């Protein structure tokens, strides 16, 4: 039998339901792995062993009684430490919020608990989801499980690292400019930024409200779909929450991708942004796979990447500064340098720049909607390269490399990052799959079809496995 920590949610769920796998046994296994390895990885800010074991026993009791809640029942997960947890500190990985203990759960925290998940702990993040990778915070930054000398990307860095390292079966990240998809890409997992409004942000520390999204990160896209089945709920307490019918995640799992029309945004990675040859090769290989699966592949054209990047930057910096200005003015020393510098930029943006960025956003949304009249999903890279060395991230972020991910925060489109192979250095390659608003199920179906048609999901971090073996 596969090791417990190598099970996907989709594999574990039937075992849990059939009482062949005990939530207590599963949780204990994850807690001992965290105990053994997180000292090197720094994926967790706070582990909750007693609470997790209590929840596991409760889940076991419920399942034994026949009160099975669904595929997440008994599944150990982690939350990025900007998700409010009642009675448990929620720090934003910041000295400013070191002692912040929320009085209420985030809506998503509650939904996951009600679905029977077991909360293992709170995961590290870039400070307030913006300042990273930082070395001047109360907790160290997370490392990349594929090579501990490398960066896992951010801001949902702990969420990505924990999944890849087998320290949780599912995790929650947030994504304002790529913060779910970036770590998913560099950690070689599946991460979905859902359609804007599909998943509640109530009780998640905001960065930039009109660009913020919460979403799942798992080993497979299929597992993300199982998480989304629980997460996609209208929430009147989030004014951005959409009151729409839930996408058919369950039905979509049964369907194939034959006949789907795939649009490749080739100019994004061939001319707009410098992209590593290995990433490009990964995309081309994936397109071959999709053709074999019966998809029609064509190239499409959108506005240049920089058009999205500029509008998104003006919006996110303005909104972030509005949220932080009071504390930033009062106690700047409680912010790390990167968060302080990045948020501070918002002070220099004029109101008319923000308004014009919103107007530009409207134009770009209309443009992408017209492209989606002739294709069902878009494909481009998630990140222009593989994970750099920890500490080298600054060099990765420049105007010659405008972000592939921010595009879809601006348009609100559902966007999934999947692993599209490995570089010669053994680091994960990446690909982004993007759909029409509220067709998150289709995006996950395409990701899942790709994962099943390839063998990249069979490979866990090699270095990690060796260390694990050595430790055992």
């Amino acid at each position: 039998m596969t090791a417990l920590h190598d099970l996907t949610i989709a594999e574990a769920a039937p075992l849990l339901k059939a009482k062949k796998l005990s939530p207590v046994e599963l949780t204990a296994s994850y807690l001992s792995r965290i105990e053994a390895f997180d000292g090197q990885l720094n994926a967790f800010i706070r582990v909750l062993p007693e609470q997790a074991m209590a929840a596991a026993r409760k889940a076991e009791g419920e399942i034994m009684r026949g009160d099975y809640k669904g595929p997440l029942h008994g599944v150990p997960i982690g939350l990025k430490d900007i998700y409010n947890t009642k009675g448990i500190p929620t720090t934003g990985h910041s000295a400013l919020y070191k002692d912040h203990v929320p009085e209420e759960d985030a809506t998503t925290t509650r939904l996951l608990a009600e679905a029977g998940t077991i909360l293992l702990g709170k995961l590290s993040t870039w400070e307030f989801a913006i300042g990273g990778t930082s070395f001047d915070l109360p907790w160290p930054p997370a490392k990349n499980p594929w090579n501990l000398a490398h960066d896992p990307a951010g801001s949902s860095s702990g969420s990505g690292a924990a999944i890849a390292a087998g320290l949780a079966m599912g995790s929650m990240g947030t994504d304002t400019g790529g913060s779910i998809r970036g770590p998913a890409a560099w950690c070689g997992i599946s991460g979905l930024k859902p359609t804007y409004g599909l998943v509640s942000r109530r009780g998640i520390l905001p960065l930039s409200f009109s660009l913020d999204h919460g979403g799942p990160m798992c080993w497979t896209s299929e597992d993300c779909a199982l998480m989304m089945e629980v997460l996609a709920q209208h929430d009147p307490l989030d004014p951005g929450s959409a009151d729409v019918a839930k996408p058919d995640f369950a039905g979509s799992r049964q369907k194939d991708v034959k006949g789907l029309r795939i649009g490749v945004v080739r100019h994004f990675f061939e001319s707009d942004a410098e992209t590593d040859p290995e990433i490009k090769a990964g995309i081309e290989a994936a397109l071959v796979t999709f053709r074999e699966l019966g998809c029609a592949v064509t190239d499409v054209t959108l506005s240049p990447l920089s058009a999205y990047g500029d509008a998104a930057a003006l919006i996110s910096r303005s909104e972030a500064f509005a949220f932080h200005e009071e504390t930033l003015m009062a106690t700047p020393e409680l912010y790390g340098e990167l968060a302080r510098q990045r948020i501070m930029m918002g002070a220099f943006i004029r109101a008319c720049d923000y308004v014009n960025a919103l107007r530009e956003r409207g134009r770009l949304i209309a443009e992408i909607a017209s492209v989606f009249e002739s294709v069902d999903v878009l494909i481009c890279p998630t990140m222009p390269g593989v994970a750099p060395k920890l500490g080298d991230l600054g060099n990765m972020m420049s105007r010659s490399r405008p972000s592939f991910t921010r595009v879809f925060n601006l348009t609100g489109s559902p966007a999934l990052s999947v692993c599209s192979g490995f570089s010669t250095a053994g680091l994960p390659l990446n690909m982004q799959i993007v759909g029409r608003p509220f067709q998150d199920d289709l995006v996950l179906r395409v990701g899942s079809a790709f994962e099943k048609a390839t063998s990249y999901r069979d490979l866990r971090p090699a270095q990690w496995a060796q260390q694990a073996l050595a430790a055992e």
Partner: protein
Amino acid sequence: MTGDPTLLTIREASTLIAERKLSPVELTKACIARTEALDATLSTYVAFTPELALDAARAAEAEIGTSGPRGPMHGIPVGLKDIYDTAGVATTAHSNLLKSRVPAEDAFTVTKLRESGAVITGKLGTFEFAIGGPSFDLFTLPARNPWDPARTTGGSSSGSGAAVAAGMVLGATGSDTGASIRSPSSLCGLAGIKPTYGLLSRRGILPLSQSLDHAGPMCWTVEDAALMLQAMVGHDPLDPACADVAVPDFTEKLDETVKGKTIGVIRHFHETDHEAAPPVLAAIEQAIAVYRSLGCVIKEVTLPPLMDFAAVGLIIMSSEAFAIHEADLRATPELYGEIARDRISMGGLLTGADYVQALRRRQELCAAVAEAMIGVDVLLTAGSPFPAQPIDNVPKWLMYQKPSITMPFNVTGLPALALCAGYEPGTGLPVAMQLVGHPFAETTVFQLGHAYEQATQWRATRPALLAA
């Protein structure tokens, strides 16, 4: 018919037209004659187009003769604020910057009005770009108040207010970003409604501030405003803010009793937050007494301070307006009048965070008003805190000094009707109140406004100028 047809309401005129007792051509000619007699005094039009109006009136007459009227607006002369695009006819926003701008297409609402058979008489004066006025440094003079030509009409739909009060047209379009339909309606003694945000398309109307701009009608009576609004309404997918809602018959409740309706008086708005002049306060008390006598339940409602709404509105408006005008203001500031230039420029000094904070406060204010309106059918406060001021003495920064009493309903998007509540003793200047409804509950607002007009005599009095 006998008598002066320009003083008919739209309802009366359309009834006579349907009965073939009044000819649209005769009515239009009377409005043209009225305009020719008074426009030198009132400076109402930026571009008066009597020939086009007569062509339209003749076409209406012919069609009505063979197949009857399309509806109550068929053959009715109406004017357009000169920020409503008209195909082939200059649309200038009363600004030197756009003096020779001729749009290729009609605004969506202008198309709707033409489809209703309305006779369009021309383009009416406005504050420059719906924000700067009354200004004496533009290519035409500002409109003057028919009740006293030495006084302002209020703005920005200034020509619209003057033209309807003076009987030059039976209705006019206005637009309202902070007060611009309700202020001239109040100061000129009309009924003007700023409908719910999203009810009317703004496509083809020059924008001032996208998230606060509203289009709407200005007429002599509440009933007429309902009829004209009906002709302007329709879903327009090309205005991203236009709501796709079922449209009621806005006149359907006009004859229903208002007994048992609850009116929430926002006393602190007009008594303390922006203390209204004594004749306005007295008129509001009298109006409350009228509603009581009609069987309405009166209660007092407390909202957040008026200044909070004013601050949110001013920051949003200034930011959005500057975003629209930045390039022209930098390139050719001399093509703006002083008041518009100075007011719009102020938006350039705000930060993105100011705008975001104003949006956050806007949401809190919307929630507070929604909660205060539970169990209330309409809110009531002053339409303007004061009657018309001398035209040469309107403070440029009034909105900065005193909180606007109309802005709260641009900020919340609620439908707000200004209607005449009497006349100041001595001067005879109109005073006004505002009735504010739930989102898309225009019919209830019209019902209560109409009931008040029916119970009072104010609609029988026209400006003395008209008798001269």
